[in-house]
């Protein structure tokens, strides 16, 4: 399960990680090496996603095996790891009587920022997540979407190297969800932090992540490099033709593309290097063939997830 073979220290490195809670084994020998900028953590309820996050934060100790974040051992260097992490919990995590600015400032000071810097960063973070105008309001009076944004602000206020977002779009209306996704995409584009997103919503992961890890019953059942998947999907084309006498597929093959012919003029092809869609249009025009439909394959994360769940 390696994203890419590089010499850079992996963000998260799990080696036969097992975690028991009580007598129950929750994580069953996870092996994983993640280096991507944004990683999606997927899995059904009870798959062990939250336990994995809590283990990375040092809340649960590994029963056996090891877990490292930026090369630091979660067993012995949890405190140091926490200095590098910003965590946005899934559930409510705020103090109702506190104003947003005090809350985020408190988070910043607890992360080690001096008082002046903490206050400045709290203002900046709240403006960044879109709560600038509401920063002097009490958190208890915030809407669910605003609370989510406040949680995000406290997670990023100290400039962490790794941000863990647990269900960031939970309970958000479509507008707020789009705003949250946009923020995550912006954070990814900044390139200053790695992001781990734990979500049930496959679309969220698809829109924000470069890598996806699917957990099931405490085990990694699938690792997917979404960037590579997207790139390969862009080369796989499904065509439906009208007026083809059977020569179109041959012509495509002569271009060097693998081709499979289906019923009713349907053709599936993988475009080889240097061949673009316009070449197919040109071939069709030369043979006076109508292209009734042309689709890129959309092997969506949902397909990947469903396949992984069947394993």
């Amino acid at each position, binding site marked *: 399960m390696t994203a890419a073979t590089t010499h850079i220290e992996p963000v998260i490195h799990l080696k036969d990680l097992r975690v028991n809670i009580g007598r129950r084994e929750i994580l069953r020998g996870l092996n994983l090496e993640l280096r991507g900028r944004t990683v999606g953590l997927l899995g059904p309820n009870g798959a062990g996603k939250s336990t994995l996050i*809590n283990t990375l934060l040092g809340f649960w100790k590994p029963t056996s095996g090891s877990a490292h974040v930026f090369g630091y051992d979660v067993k012995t260097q949890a405190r140091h790891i926490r*200095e590098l992490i910003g965590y946005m*919990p899934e559930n409510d*995590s*705020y103090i109702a009587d506190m104003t947003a600015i005090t809350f985020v400032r408190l988070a910043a*000071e*607890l992360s080690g*920022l*001096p008082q002046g*810097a903490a206050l400045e960063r709290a203002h900046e973070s709240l403006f960044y997540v879109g709560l600038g105008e509401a920063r002097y309001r009490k958190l208890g009076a915030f809407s669910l979407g605003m609370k989510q944004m406040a949680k995000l602000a406290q997670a990023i206020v100290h400039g962490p190297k790794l941000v863990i977002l647990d269900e960031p779009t939970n309970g958000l209306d479509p507008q707020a969800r789009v705003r949250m996704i946009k923020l995550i995409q912006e954070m990814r584009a900044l390139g200053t932090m790695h992001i781990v997103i734990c979500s049930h919503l496959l679309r969220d992961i698809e829109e924000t992540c470069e890598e996806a890890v699917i957990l099931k019953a405490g085990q990694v059942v699938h690792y997917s490099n979404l960037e590579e998947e997207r790139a390969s999907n862009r080369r796989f084309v499904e065509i439906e033709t009208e007026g083809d006498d059977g020569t179109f597929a041959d012509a495509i093959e002569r271009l060097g593309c693998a081709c499979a012919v289906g019923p009713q003029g349907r053709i599936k092809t993988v475009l080889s290097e240097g061949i673009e869609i316009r070449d197919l249009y040109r071939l069709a025009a030369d043979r006076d063939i109508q292209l009734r439909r042309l689709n890129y394959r959309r092997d969506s994360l949902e397909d990947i997830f469903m396949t992984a769940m069947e394993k």
Partner: protein
Amino acid sequence: MAVYKRTYHSYAGPLTNPLWRFLVLQRFAFKAVMKSRFLLIGYLACFIAPVLIICMLYLNQNASILAMVKQKPGFLNIDGRYFFNFLNFQAVCAGLLTAFVGPTLVAPDLANGALPMYLSRSLSRAEYILGKGMVLGAIISSITLAPLLLMFAVQSSLVGYAWFIDNFYLFNAIVVASLLVMSVFILLGLAMSAWVRWRIVAGALVLGSFVAGKGFGAVINGVMRTEKGYYLDLQHLLSSVGGSLFHNAAADEPISALAAFITLMIFCVGLLLLINRKLRVCEAA
């Protein structure tokens, strides 16, 4: 705020020492507690008795003023009993303040799951308890330990070195007894705040612990014709230790100071375990 700052950038400035970050919790919690005017008035009222007592200590040694009421200097006998009674009075005030302040410390963090926000940073559960406990510690020590030490210093300076040497045991007694009162109240306040959601109920339970302990103890003593019931009476246990420290123990004291001290320590450890258990459950929620 400048428009250029309305974007995100990573932080590269200096960081504070991780060992002292729990003081941040103490500072924020103390500010929140002192926002209540009612509590502030109550807190300030706790200084009335110390001010009066210190004035009395001064008057007790002021020959010219005492002459006006036909008294001689030192007409009040300032000894262990005097200090012990004053500590008892201030401890009652401390108990009342704990009932008001204690429930506001941990409960708001647990009510809306703010604990993971604290503990996902480089802050341990022990530091969290220490930070929150220091709020009560500061309040209680300022109305027990500090005024008693001030009284001791004032009396020593007024009467002289001989009194200071003769009564030096009072210094130790003040420190140990005040720390004991603080430990019991701090842990009781935090435990009730952690386990009881409603502030009023938590506050009532802080006071109720003393009343209930006394009641149960009396019932056990009455029904079983024993004196073991006193081990449930927190007030009695504190008085027993305090009386011994201030050389003011009752002749017919049913339990020894050592036994009372050990019982109080067991009680404190129990409270600490209770707080830790609750925080452990909530930190990874």
